[in-house]
């Protein structure tokens, strides 16, 4: 079902051509002030809640009661951060999140690239049928399988371990589909044939032809897998409440007996800072990743 709704892949050359056409001839005028007003409004709407949290997180609870919100940060950010560290084991949770997201990302990239390469470039009996299966499962909300998953984890005594968080998301149908869509255009069949004629085994061909060609898509897939794993809350909350990931620990800030809003907001800001840094450093890649995801899958 989903497959039919996807935009047909546009090759990199076509995109470049379109880009060239638009930039090169200078037919398009610069847009007027109205467009800039819109993007500025949108930017402020996106940024203000974060800025407000920082302002509030750097003051005490009394600031919350002011009718007009203070516009500048106060001097208590580090005091509030210290309170965050007292309430939750922030560094342990951060470490847990990094381990979980990194392992999931590595696994999804590895298995998606392998399977995606096979579906895109190798011929084998049953290929079409299996690919249809992958596409059909794209839209299946596997999250709804949490009940038996939880029972299995409990049975094996894995609850409380990071393995319990990692295992359910080791592979995704989307990853396979995404890699397949990318590789089908990118690797010329002749290249694989040439490697094979030169006597390379199948796995060597994959390693020396498939993987280098797949690298850009692996980067995009990795970025989004990492984000998804990093933001997940429902499943880690179920299986590792005592050994929390960052999201679970953050949520525990709020359910502490005595809720100090400025501490909660300082915690939210603290947990967001690394991601803002990622956005500043790799924002361009993130943007082109989202846009490529739309065209490819």
């Amino acid at each position, binding site marked *: 079902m989903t497959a039919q*709704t996807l*935009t047909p892949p*546009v090759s990199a050359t*076509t995109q470049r051509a*379109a880009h060239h056409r638009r930039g090169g001839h200078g037919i398009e005028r*610069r*847009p007027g002030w109205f*467009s800039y007003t*819109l*993007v500025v409004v*949108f*930017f402020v*709407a*996106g940024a203000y*809640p974060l800025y*407000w949290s920082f302002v*509030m997180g750097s003051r005490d609870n009394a600031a*919350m009661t*002011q*009718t*007009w*919100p203070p516009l500048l940060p106060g001097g208590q950010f580090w005091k509030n951060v210290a309170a965050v560290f007292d309430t939750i084991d922030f560094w342990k949770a951060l470490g847990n999140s990094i381990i979980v997201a990194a392992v999931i990302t590595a696994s999804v990239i590895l*298995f998606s690239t*392998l*399977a995606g390469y096979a579906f895109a470039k190798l011929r084998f*009996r049953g*290929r079409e049928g299996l690919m249809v299966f*992958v596409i059909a499962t794209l*839209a*299946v*909300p596997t999250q*709804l*399988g949490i*009940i*038996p998953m939880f*029972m299995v984890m409990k049975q094996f005594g894995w609850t409380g371990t990071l393995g319990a968080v990692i295992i*359910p998301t080791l*592979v995704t*149908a989307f990853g*396979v589909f995404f890699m397949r869509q990318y590789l089908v255009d990118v690797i010329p069949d002749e290249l694989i*044939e040439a490697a*094979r*004629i030169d006597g390379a085994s199948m796995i060597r061909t994959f390693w020396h032809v498939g993987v280098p060609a797949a690298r850009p898509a692996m980067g995009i897939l990795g970025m989004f897998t990492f984000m998804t794993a990093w933001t997940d809350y*429902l499943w880690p909350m*179920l299986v590792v409440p005592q050994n929390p990931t960052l*999201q679970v620990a953050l*949520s525990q*800030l*709020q359910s502490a007996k005595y809720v100090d*809003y400025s501490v*909660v907001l300082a915690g939210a800001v603290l*947990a967001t800072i690394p*991601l*803002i840094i*990622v956005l500043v450093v790799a924002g361009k890649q*993130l*943007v082109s990743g*989202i*846009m490529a995801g*739309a065209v490819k899958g």
Partner: protein
Amino acid sequence: MTSTLSSPPRRQTRPNAPQPAASNSRLTLRQRLNRWDVRYSPYFYVAPFFILFGLVGLFPLLYTFVVSLNDWNLLTGPGDWVGFHNFAAELTDPLFWNSVFNTFSIFFLSAIPQLIAATVIAAVLDQNLRAKTFWRISVILPYVVTPVAVTLIFSNMFGEKYGLINNLLEAFHLPGVMWKSDTLPAHIAIATMVNWRWTGYNALILLAAMQAVPRDLHESAAIDGAGAVRRFFSITIPSIKPTFIFVIITATIGGLQIFTEPKLFNAASAIPGGAQRQYQTTVLYLWDLAFNRQQFGKAAAVAWILFLIIVIVGLVNFLLTRSISGAETKAISRRKARRLARVRERDAASVASVQAEGSIE
């Protein structure tokens, strides 16, 4: 199918293929290994995915169905086989329907404004703005904030006593809104969190689709006297329809499974989803049923009902979007084709070069 295969190493052994027994003896070990390599490697490459996906994706979903047919308790384990009793019980439970109502209400409050806003932003970003990259990055700023952090922030902004929004309302001498106690305000607050995080992301997806629309179409329409607004509705919107459907369907799958936002919206509430369960979504209801009330069987039934709802809504979405704009699009694409033909005649040389470049796949 196999007869059309033409991987080179195989070609060498090809002539003898029909009599494997006879030919095998004449093959060296190396050739035989090579042949196995070609034949079975693909299966080894796809197998890990299928095995893992079967174990961690499909099996739990199917086993949920088995659990749903039992009177299963979190603590005491499997009880009696009750057939479809759990389904019947849930389908007549007002709390279940309350959660379905809340889910759809929040879904509509988020999906519709979000798509409209995303389309507008995408159209603005599709223009030749200065500092293009900066604006594109800026729209996904909220996307990198995790849902838990988003909820912590917005739950404070929507605080009833000292929240930012009620403070501002008070500053203008307006009555405060009971964002957490009243049903509609709570739904609006939760939808706001979802919209805040996803609008920019969806705008970029739509932007990518808009950029794939041939510029010639816009140019020729402009020459024919169509204004920017007219071009937006007659060219851009119909051209990005497939992406639009894609965005709607992903929004549906995600939107019907909202959990984090209502779960953490009000930490003070003893009942997840509000004192009157006024913003308890279905996944939150499922979680409450399974892990607080220990009714695994019933919760599993809810999971399956929700699964079916998602599939049905996805299909309805798809069919509706297609049939509504189907006839219209056909007319437009005919017009579009004519227009393109005209443009290409007029500007044959340059378009041909671009086409040639573009069609190298």
